[in-house]
């Protein structure tokens, strides 16, 4: 089915697309038909900066198992690093106090 249901998260970071690196401002997350992956439905994520046009997009189409494994891997990587090491807010605060 086409689920239509899209969840959006604001992002700060970069992604590498067909024209090189660009700032990622949002991630759209949805379960729907993939464009390429050989499955009927996948968990899809578009890392994008709409202000730079439709091609400023890095797309992934993942099985549910892969998506859940990705979540766990992200959590594990963040847990392993010192708290706040990759936090934008913490880095801004640190720069301000330096």
């Amino acid at each position, binding site marked *: *089915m*086409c*689920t*239509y*249901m*899209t*969840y*959006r998260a604001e992002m700060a970071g970069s992604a590498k697309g067909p024209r090189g690196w660009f700032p990622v401002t*949002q991630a*759209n997350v*949805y379960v*729907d*038909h*993939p*464009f*390429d992956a*050989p*499955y*009927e439905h996948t968990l899809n994520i*578009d890392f*994008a900066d*709409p202000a730079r*046009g*439709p*091609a400023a*997009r890095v*797309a992934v189409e993942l099985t549910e198992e892969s998506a859940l494994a990705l979540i766990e891997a992200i959590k594990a990587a963040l847990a392993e690093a010192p708290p706040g090491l990759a936090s934008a807010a913490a880095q801004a605060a640190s720069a301000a106090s330096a």
Partner: protein
Amino acid sequence: MYDAMLAETIKMIGHNDDEIEAYTARPLGPGPYGGVVVIHHMPGFDQATKEIVRRFAVHGYLTICPNLHYRAAPGASPDDASAATRDAGGVPDDRLVGDVAGAARWLRSQTSSNGKVGTIGYCSGGRQSFLAACSLPLDAAVDCYGGFVVREMPKDIPYPPVRPLLDLAPQLSCPLLGLFGAEDKYPSPEETAELENALSKAGKAYEFHTYPGAGHAFFSVDRPAYRPEAAKDGWQRIFDWFGRYLGG
């Protein structure tokens, strides 16, 4: 038998007099030919949909598929345009109706047209084919596993661009062929039975077929959901339907 045809991307006038892109294929004989508007699925104005457009032309129909995602991303690849359209909240129902109306106008304006136009859509396009047939004067329509015609969408989702269409059944302007998979959940056999009941109560001409062993998207030759037996029978029924209602 003369069987030449022309397939090309053109510009057409859609909803709100917007110029949008469309893919068309048409037989080059003198006609008169019936017309078909193909409504693409959420993944967009893709190669698989364009193959469907050409298939109708091979069978003697003037055929056009408006690019419903053109406005969000002119010139972009189908996958990027689909993602951009999703980001913009999807294809609004009134815009869809306007674009199909423009496509039907284009078909009827062809010198080889017999004046008759039908619609066919797959997946989200199945719902939109029903919507168009309830909103515009058409001669035939086909709904291939369109979801959310009957079922309400959850209320708490960020972008709820579609509404159920069951209340439009009394306005259906033409005979409707519905092709569904028994294993599909969107729409489920219970939902298509509910739609069938509404059409029956409204005294509409329709024919529904639900294929055992097939789920959603069983016509998609490039997807694992492809079910050759259901698709083969479905195509036969589509051409019988259009032959009956769009023929000269």
